[in-house]
């Protein structure tokens, strides 16, 4: 399993978590990442507007030559962006699991302030153990 990077966006499109797990994507400054997240938030909203069929949601999978990005939006509006290699299978399962870890180690942490950047060491630890297990 090769997951390049994970980002989490809050309801307002603010980047609250970004972390690379494998080499493959450029290292951007935190400001660039914030801009990127804001742009994506807008694009995501538009993609459901330009749908040729009735009742489409926003962007779910984006493919490029070098990577594949899955966007999982929760019912509460939080977005999980998972960047993986182009032919990585079962990304939706991975999204679910990351969401579960978020619900456990971020939302149940009494020191986390909602909608603010995530600085939870237990979340980092478990995410790392899941996405980059030690061989």
């Amino acid at each position, binding site marked *: 399993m090769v997951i390049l990077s994970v980002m989490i966006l809050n309801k307002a499109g603010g980047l609250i978590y970004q972390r690379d797990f494998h080499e493959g994507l450029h290292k951007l400054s935190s400001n660039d990442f914030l801009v990127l997240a804001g742009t994506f938030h807008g694009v995501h909203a538009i993609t459901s507007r330009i749908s040729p069929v009735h009742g489409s949601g926003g962007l779910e999978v984006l493919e490029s030559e070098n990577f594949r990005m899955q966007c999982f939006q929760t019912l509460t509006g939080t977005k999980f962006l998972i960047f993986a290699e182009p032919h990585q299978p079962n990304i939706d399962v991975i999204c679910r699991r990351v969401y579960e870890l978020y619900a456990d180690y971020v939302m149940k942490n009494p020191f986390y302030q909602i909608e603010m950047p995530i600085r939870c*060491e237990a979340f980092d630890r478990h995410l790392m153990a899941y996405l980059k297990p030690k061989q």
Partner: protein
Amino acid sequence: MSLQPPTSPFVPFSPNPALQPGTPSSTTPLSIAQKPPPVSSASLRYASTRRSIYDRNLNRTQRAELSKASFAFLFGEMIQYAQKRVSGIQDLEKKLNIQGYSIGQRLLELLLFREGRSAKRETRILGILQFIAQTVYRHLFNKPADGLERSHDKDDEYMLIDHEPVVNTYISVPKEISLLNCAAFVAGIIEAVLDGSLFPARVTAHSTPTDQYPGRTVYLIKFEESVLEREAMLAGGKP
């Protein structure tokens, strides 16, 4: 067993209170019981069977389990509530300790009651520590404690080790207050059990992370001098 609704809040849960000797000053509640039922008993909520949870046998919920998630949310709120009303880390740990303390006091009573005839009053330090590491821990967390050690340099200090305290499962302490360990709550429970068994002690929780167990916590138990004196006497009295 009588099915009459309780007439006063002092009605004991046991169907046959006479079989419990040694209940101190049993006359006082009885004299109250003879008075007309106080209003407070009417405010208790009864199920359709006219029996409240207070009428249930205490052993009934012995193996009952609790959702870890709901505990995590409740505990989180407790910490946030306490955090708004304290000036520092020590203050916060003290608040958590006090919250745990009142639980421990009641818990000791319940566990001894449940042990039934085999229950005994511990008189030795090792005995009471084993009771905590085994019975109390199993009841609270469904596992025994991971270790029990005696301090090398101080006679009055013992260490109870937990590799991953259940209460801390979802908690990441921010770097600014990294000294805080929310297991102070459990330390309060342990302290109350010790105090209740007449082993007055001071219990504190300390984080001692290792690579394998990043959440490893040591409960430092510091007994009062009187406990050690008694222990020495009991040890000396033996052949």
